[in-house]
């Protein structure tokens, strides 16, 4: 909880006015940019019109060319003949200007910007020039008698040409002045916009400066509060350590106390056992609290040790032997042969995880079996976590499965949704999922692993954990495990397929092929070397005679030591041996090694 508070404090506290300031800046910048684009675009258009569509130049050129044409006609005399198209050339030169004034962009400008009088004048001039051109062919042919008429008509046209040029000039100047004024206005607006833009930038600078100041203040506060939080964590850890230190000797003393109570010997022993178990559980609960608080204070350091995986597992499961017996539960373990025996891992924490999950399995199983399966994981190793797996290249999977009634629906929901079960959350305890599972999830995440589960009502539950490990550099050179030289056959009398499967896995490592007994004459002619009985009620009298037959042929009969069998009803019992649970690979191996070796000699 404190961790979450710390995490929340890391965000800078933004003031409302600061956000409003930023929003205002963005909106105003957007509008200003939009306005600038529009005004600059219009300004550029106005400039283009001024430069490329200047009708004034063309109208003056037209006036000049009309004088040149008149001058050319006036100066023609007999000596210039033949003209060889020179008169046509002069006329075309003039008319090319008329065409420019009538068509194209300039013509469009004249029609659009000047009054109707200008257009009418241009039409009159064009018509008159077309009429004058009719006589050009005669002059080109050498008949100069038409020259006077042509020059007179051209001189009469002079007034219209002048008026046209003046009108175009006036209107064009008016248009240019108007465009320039508009351009000036737009430039003024652009200037105002730029001032606004600068003001917005200033506002942004102020916002940033204020924001930085707030951030710095918050950062300082955050650091101070983080220190306070850490101090509280330390204090909490100290108090809990003190509680553990103070209570542990007393509980341990209680554990070491022999039964001195009055009454019968049996009742004393039961009371003493009960007290010891309760004291053990109390000590365990205190340890769990201590671990959770240390994890919250980030003071729980993982300590890797190099140990034998198989031996460690054997030791862990025997701690729970007394808890399995009252319910008649059968616990079997199996370590995959592909896993190295000696590995580097924080075995103390792995033990806590396994024991908690085992406790959970026992709680949720009224009858049947529980298995612990250690195997290589298919999950890829994650990034180095807490420095414990910086040189890790393998993942170990621990699967704990039971044949119980399954996890309650509410518990499943809490496990799937609780922030505690998510690896990136820092909540330390959730009452909905209990202290044991809380500790499990926290430890697995601390070790850089992951934990999953599946549960079905009346079918059982399976938890599986993937944690990183590193194989020890030195592995035992010699494997002392017993393996039958020739493959033997075993028959298991049970209805528990889960148990049968794990017994089968254990036997397979000793080169014994195991089969599950099924009713009927299926095993009549078979030669069986090992019989394992956990549920004798599946044995019919006929099968019993087969067992006796196999026993007479040297087969070993093992039966669950918790079964209360009548030797008279079970004739094979005289030579049978009991089998205790939890059953580990090494236990079974030693038992079979001893029997089959003795049989050889």
């Amino acid at each position, binding site marked *: 909880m404190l961790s979450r508070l710390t995490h929340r404090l890391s965000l800078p506290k933004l003031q409302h006015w600061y956000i409003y300031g930023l929003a205002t800046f963005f909106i105003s910048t957007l509008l200003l940019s939009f306005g600038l684009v529009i005004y600059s675009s219009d300004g550029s258009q106005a400039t283009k019109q001024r430069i490329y569509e200047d009708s004034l130049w063309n109208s003056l050129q037209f006036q000049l060319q009309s004088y040149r044409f008149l001058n050319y006609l006036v100066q023609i005399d007999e000596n210039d003949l033949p003209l060889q198209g020179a008169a046509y050339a002069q006329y*075309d*030169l003039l008319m090319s200007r008329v065409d420019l004034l009538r068509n194209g962009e300039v013509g469009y400008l004249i029609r659009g910007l000047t009054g109707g009088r200008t257009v009418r004048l241009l039409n009159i001039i064009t018509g008159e020039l077309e009429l004058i051109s009719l006589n050009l062919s005669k002059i080109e042919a050498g008949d100069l008698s038409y020259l006077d008429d042509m020059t007179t008509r051209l001189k009469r046209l002079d007034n219209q040409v002048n008026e046209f040029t003046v009108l175009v000039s006036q209107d064009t100047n008016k248009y240019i002045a108007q465009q320039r004024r508009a351009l000036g206005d737009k430039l003024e607006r652009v200037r105002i916009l730029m001032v606004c833009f600068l003001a917005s930038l200033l506002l942004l600078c102020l916002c940033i400066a204020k924001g930085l100041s707030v951030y710095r203040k918050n950062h300082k506060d955050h650091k101070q509060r983080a220190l306070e939080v850490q101090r509280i964590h330390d204090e909490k850890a100290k108090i809990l350590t003190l509680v553990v230190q103070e209570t542990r000797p007393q509980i341990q003393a209680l554990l070491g106390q022999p039964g001195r109570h009055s009454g019968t010997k049996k009742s004393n022993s039961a009371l003493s056992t009960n007290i010891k178990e309760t004291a053990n559980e109390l000590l365990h609960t205190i340890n769990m609290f201590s671990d959770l608080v240390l994890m919250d204070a980030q003071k729980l350091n993982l300590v890797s040790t190099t140990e034998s995986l198989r031996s460690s597992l054997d030791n862990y499961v025997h701690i729970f032997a007394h808890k399995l017996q009252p319910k008649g539960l059968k616990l079997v373990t199996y370590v995959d042969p592909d896993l190295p025996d000696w590995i580097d891992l924080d075995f103390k924490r792995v033990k806590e995880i396994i024991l908690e999950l085992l406790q959970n399995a026992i709680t949720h199983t009224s009858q049947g079996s529980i298995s612990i399966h250690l195997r290589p994981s298919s999950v890829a190793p994650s990034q180095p976590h807490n420095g414990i797996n910086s040189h890790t290249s393998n993942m170990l999977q621990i699967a704990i499965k039971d044949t119980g009634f399954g996890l309650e629906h509410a518990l499943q929901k809490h496990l799937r949704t609780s922030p505690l079960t998510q690896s990136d959350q820092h909540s330390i305890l959730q009452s909905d999922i209990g202290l044991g599972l809380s500790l499990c999830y926290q430890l697995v995440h601390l070790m850089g692993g992951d934990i999953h589960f599946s549960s079905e009502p009346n079918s059982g539950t399976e938890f599986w954990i993937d944690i990183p490990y590193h194989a020890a550099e030195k592995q035992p050179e010699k494997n002392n495990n017993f393996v039958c030289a020739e493959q033997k056959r075993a028959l298991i009398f049970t209805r528990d397929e889960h148990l049968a499967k794990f017994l089968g896995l254990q036997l397979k490592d000793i080169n014994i092929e195991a089969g599950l007994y099924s009713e009927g004459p299926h095993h009549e002619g078979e030669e069986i070397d090992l019989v394992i009985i956990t549920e004798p009620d599946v044995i019919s009298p006929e099968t019993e005679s087969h067992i006796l037959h196999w026993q007479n042929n040297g087969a070993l009969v093992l039966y669950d030591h918790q079964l209360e069998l009548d030797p008279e009803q079970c004739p094979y019992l005289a030579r049978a041996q009991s089998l205790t649970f939890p059953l580990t690979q090494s236990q079974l191996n030693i038992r079979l090694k001893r029997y089959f070796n003795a049989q050889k000699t």
Partner: protein
Amino acid sequence: MRALLLLIGFLFVVPAFALPEPTGPVLLTLTGNIANTNVGDSAQFDRKMLAALPQHKLTTTMAWVSKKERPHDYVGFSALDLLELVGGTGDILRIKALNQYVIDVPISDFVDYGAIFAIKKDGKDISIRNLGPIMVLYPFDDNKDLRHEVYYWRAIWQVSSIKVLTNSAQVD
């Protein structure tokens, strides 16, 4: 040996006398820094002589005249070929139009941008009324850098004479 030197000298001298006189109406007159002339100090060209120069094709619009104008195919000669023929040396061509308008065009424009002196439009000779007979044209449609007033002004129509100058400051 003397005959060989005479032959080499003849090869160098011949180009100076190789420019024939125009037989038709003169369309273009070159003056200024030119080595080969055919009439006085000038080199004069009729349509036939201009058409004999290597011809280049260019398709473009004259958007500054009319935005609605469709592209036309123009064919004409390069200033480089013309200068090679007349032995012209310089950096600037002072081009004059029939209406006496004058503009200076750098010779580099004909190298860098592929400008031409167009004498045909859509396969036909260009009349004076249609802004011919010779006009300077740039590939405006192909190169957006050319769509600028500097090049629009250099695209002179109704070209009548060219003076080859070393630079724009050179006095006529």
